[in-house]
């Protein structure tokens, strides 16, 4: 397969393939970060996570139309506004869902699975009723389309760079929040020992609500970013949810670092294997690796050492 190409060509192919793997990695991290917070930190199995992402995508769609109709001069920058709106709307929806539904079910994790599955069906149908069953096309501003020519043979997709930068920034913010802010301290305290945290005066209910909202808000931003690379329709969330749970569980549910490590493993494995064999085979082998590792280490890659 590589016989006909010069060394320079091969290097550029490897570079482009590595870049494709990095884009996939960023996509996985974005998807999984929100769920890692909700599932990992709070133990809530949120089957509606994909739908919160699509909510963000639909908000981006609406924002693009708003800008086209009323603010055409600022169209080039609409995407940043769209992401902010997606974060706020998805976060608010998450807080509403937590207050209405989830907070009654903290002691019953399997029931949250069913309840959030129902929530995902409700959200899918409301998208269908409001926006229609078909795809909606989200138009990108000109500067985000196409690719940069780093050298003659290496081309780098602009939206790929954008997604990677976005992932980097969001992960940085989440890490800062979790490990350097007072709120993050409180979240970690609640996760470690809920009763004791309540006893020392932390409002566990408020912390739970805000954490869930944050997780859903991040999902909204991820969905907004995905309008660049995928389709936006009522059931698109279902395409992401399985991979998202895979990444979170494989990394060790309670560790954010684990999520990142597992996203890296799975994305690199899949994109490399896709290059050398077919798409379906790559998925099969990747999943076999994940199953094998999980059988050896059921808690996932990284485990928090907690005294129980």
């Amino acid at each position: 397969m590589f016989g006909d190409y010069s060394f320079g060509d091969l290097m550029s192919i490897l570079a482009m393939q590595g870049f494709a793997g990095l884009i996939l990695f960023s996509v996985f991290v974005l998807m999984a970060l929100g769920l890692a917070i909700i599932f990992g930190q709070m133990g809530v199995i949120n089957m509606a996570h994909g739908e919160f992402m699509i909510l963000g995508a639909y908000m981006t769609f609406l924002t693009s139309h708003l800008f086209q109709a009323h603010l055409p001069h600022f169209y080039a920058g609409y995407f940043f506004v769209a992401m902010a709106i997606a974060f706020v709307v998805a976060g608010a929806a998450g807080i509403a869902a937590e207050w209405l539904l989830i907070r009654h079910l903290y002691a019953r994790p399997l029931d949250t699975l069913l309840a959030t599955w129902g929530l995902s069906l409700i959200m899918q149908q409301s998208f269908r009723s409001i926006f229609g069953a078909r795809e909606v096309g989200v138009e990108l501003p000109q500067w985000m389309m196409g690719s940069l020519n780093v050298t003659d043979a290496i081309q780098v997709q602009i939206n790929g760079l954008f997604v990677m930068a976005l992932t980097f920034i969001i992960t940085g913010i989440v890490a800062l929040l979790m490990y350097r802010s007072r709120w993050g301290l409180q979240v970690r305290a609640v996760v470690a020992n809920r009763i004791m945290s309540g006893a020392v005066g932390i409002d566990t209910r408020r912390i739970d609500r805000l954490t869930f909202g944050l997780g859903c808000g991040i999902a909204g931003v991820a969905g907004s970013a995905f309008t660049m690379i995928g389709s936006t329709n009522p059931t698109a969330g279902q395409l992401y949810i399985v991979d998202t749970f895979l990444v979170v569980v494989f990394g060790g549910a309670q560790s954010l670092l684990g999520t990142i490590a597992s996203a890296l493993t799975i994305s690199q494995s899949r994109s490399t294997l896709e290059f050398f064999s077919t798409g379906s085979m790559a998925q099969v082998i990747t999943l076999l690796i994940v199953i094998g590792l999980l059988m050896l280490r059921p808690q996932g890659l990284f485990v928090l050492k907690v005294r129980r």
Partner: protein
Amino acid sequence: MSSKKRTTDFLNLTRRQLLAGASAFGAGALLSGRAFADAPPTAKVNTTGLAVTDTEVTVGILHSVTGTMAISETGSVEAEKLAISQINEEGGVLGRKIKFIQEDGASDWPTFAEKAKKLLVNDKCAAVMGCWTSASRKAVLPVFEQYNGMLYYPTFYEGLEQSKNVIYTGQEATQQIIAGLDWVNKTKGSKSFYLIGSDYIWPRTSNKIARKHIEGHLKGCKVVGEEYFPLGHTQFNSVINKIKLTRPDVIYAIVVGGSNVAFYKQLKAAGIDLSKQTLLTISVTEDEIDGIGGENIAGAFACMKYFQSLDNPNNKKFVPAFKKMWGEKTVIGDVTQAAYLGPWLWKLTAEKAGSFDIDKIAAASPGVEFKGAPEGYVRIHENHHLWSKTRVGRARTDGQYDVIYETADLVEPNPFPKGYQ
């Protein structure tokens, strides 16, 4: 024991129908009104217990309105409903108005089979307009053959199938794939082909036929790559890198459903310019471009039998009628038009046969012509496929196609071509 029960039910039904028919006949003579006077008695047109009364006949609509295939199948549902409402306005079929029962296949093939059984056994539909993917058709085919139903199937597909219980209103492989490959080889001088598809029976069989044609029948041509991705797959960067690596003359894409959107967006983002790199597809109609975005696919070629931009008197009436019913912004793809043909062909066949009985409809189908088809003129062949023209279109940024090639004559359908199996 169960057969005895069925026979008794059957006799009861016939007796009941005979009594109803006789009294209706008598009553009809007293009543004025075109509909009743035109309608042959139920006992004559329905001898197998289908859901037919003196004023109504029931048909089924079975498509996915949810799931990854909803983007493609919604158009078919809209077209079938338009055809049914137009037929009802003209007086219905054999003097009876069409009533439809719609079921959702949900992009899940076992669900299609289950709903098909429900429509045939519980609802006793006289005909079913349904299915889109070959996987869904393969799932319902045993049901239709076991319970003797009639399916009008609108999608272009890989051929290699023929059934008494199905009328295929879309093109099969030789009409669509082979004509398209011949065209691109002749006009572009293309020699190397990269085949991409979604991972299920239609793209795999189509690519098998395409490969046989490229390597066996086109001089000096070869296939330089062949890739498949699961339905719903959204990350195509690796295969796009491989395409850049092999630099084929033609990318032959059979990506289906929601994956289309991701594929063409990522293709554009990777810097592949479709006005310079030839891409020929048989799976992207105006419906899919609606979701992909015209700017992402402009310059690609598609091989179909119908494009919304076709310039003929039938289409000039059809497009506004469709937009009036479903909205100014709707688009009409090849499968949508083929779905529109289904109820009309069924009406013409039922009137030719003078009956709704499936066996009589199946026998009367060959030779039925529909001159009002938006694609022009079509005729049903003995093998239950349609004689139709083949066309090649080039995608524009506004989401429509420019028709750049059309066969001079109708192409004969040949679902079992020699040398391609």
